[in-house]
């Protein structure tokens, strides 16, 4: 089992979800995040005082997958999330030891 985490541009979520669904992945977990990197943030002005906001809104998507699917899923996500512009984000994978479905107690591939 692997945990694939993707940090993506928020407006790409729909594309990623659709691509994963097509591939056959049925579930994922998303959370709001902010990214700092090559992509610059923006400047805000309040009564003449300028504020540099250098964090950029991102979404953080987590997908649990079978070992065999891991590479394909990464591929799918990368393709769906790509705009080609700076700030498209990162995808990484981490080995997972156990996965359990809370509702049933099923473990492993069954739990997905």
């Amino acid at each position: 089992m692997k945990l694939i985490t993707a940090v993506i541009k928020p407006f790409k979520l729909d594309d990623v979800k659709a691509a994963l669904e097509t591939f056959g992945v049925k579930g994922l977990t998303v959370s709001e995040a902010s990214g700092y990197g090559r992509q610059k943030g923006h400047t805000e002005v309040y009564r003449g005082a300028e504020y540099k906001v250098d964090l950029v809104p991102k979404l953080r998507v987590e997908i649990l997958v079978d070992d065999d699917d891991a590479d394909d899923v990464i591929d799918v996500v990368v393709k769906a999330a790509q705009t080609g512009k700076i700030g498209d984000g990162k995808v990484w994978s981490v080995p997972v030891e156990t996965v359990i479905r809370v509702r049933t107690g099923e473990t492993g591939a069954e739990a997905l």
Partner: protein
Amino acid sequence: MKIDTGATAWMLAASALVLLMTPGLAFFYGGMTRAKSVLNMMMMSFVSIVTVTIAWVLYGHAFAFGTNGNSTLNKVIGGVKEIGLQSLINSTQPTGTGDKTAIPSLVFSMFQLTFAIITVALISGAIADRTKFGAWVVFTFAWATLVYFPVAHWVWGGGWLSQLGIEDFAGGTVVHVNAGAAGLALAFVLGKRKGWPKEPMRPHNLGYTLLGVGLLWFGWFGFNAGSEVGVDGTTALAFMNTQIATAVAAGSWIVVEKLRDGHATTLGCASGAVAGLVAITPACAFIDPWAAMLLGVVVGAVCAYAVGLKYKLGFDDSLDVVGVHLVGGALGALSLGILARYATAGTAQGQGLLYGHHGFKQLGLQALGPVAIGLYSFCMAWVIGKIIDKTIGFRIEEEEEVAGIDIAVHAESAYDLAPSHGGGALAAASVAAASQAKVEAEA
């Protein structure tokens, strides 16, 4: 009678002010609910404007302020001539200033309508987060018809309570005791919210609550000083006393909090202000400024404790309609029996214990008012509520309550504030505008 344009100008402004109180109440209440039920809470107020306006035009004004030519029947209910308000066009209504001037009858009707609206809306605070919207709509029609219109007639329309000599300048009993008692009844009919009182249900947006208080306070000047139906020294006294009691009660409540809980809270300040507004309502035109101050101190402190009663007695009066409106309204009405000095100018009629020759009688009357109206309203609301509950059902499903009534009942959520790509990535980005086809098909 000659129209006094000045008096009319004030009554027009006052009508607009009192109407604004209901949206104000929507925010006062809405801020106190959880984020998942704020829209439903506000909608209960807004829809009261809708239903009570319709009932008022059709028959409400007639029942409350009409005459039926039968003096016995007229003790309990108005007439029918004013149905549809058609007969009020181009007719006038004497001002309350005794100078033989008038205002257009429709202005008086509009002013009174706004009272009926907010009284009904006030009740909704007792049943936050769990009420079927359709059932609430039915209840507002039924309760306005069977309770508010008759009770307004009893006290202000020449009915039996006013004939007894009970004083209620702007609605301590007609509005607040009345709504509070109905709220209590509905709290029993609907039962506790799932998780109450173990689960925390703290206010989700105190800014809204403060906004509500600001608008209520502002509008209440129309409510109280407008109740003179004219412009004179009494109007001025009612206005000033409203300000005094409200400010003092807000202060009194937060002093109690500071001493008892260690913190003066925003919600306490807001609640104290409303308690003060409630209590001064029946009394504002009849008492001296120092008495308004005294009333403010007492009601602020009493209500600060009264809102804790529900935990002791175990009923889920969610936003404290009982602790603030029933208790505050009764206290204000009662205070007249002691403090009233100007009830009817130049005579001892209606004066309280401190001034009148028949003080104890007035005190008795002032106790009778809240008791009679409170009981009537409680019983009727309970019966109406039970009937609704047994027929169409008054309460939403438990699952809907847990998930949130806004989405379950109104198919909306109040906030979508996430900054990511604007408009809530987690929600919006994953949303599909599925309905254009449907809209087109039906349009």
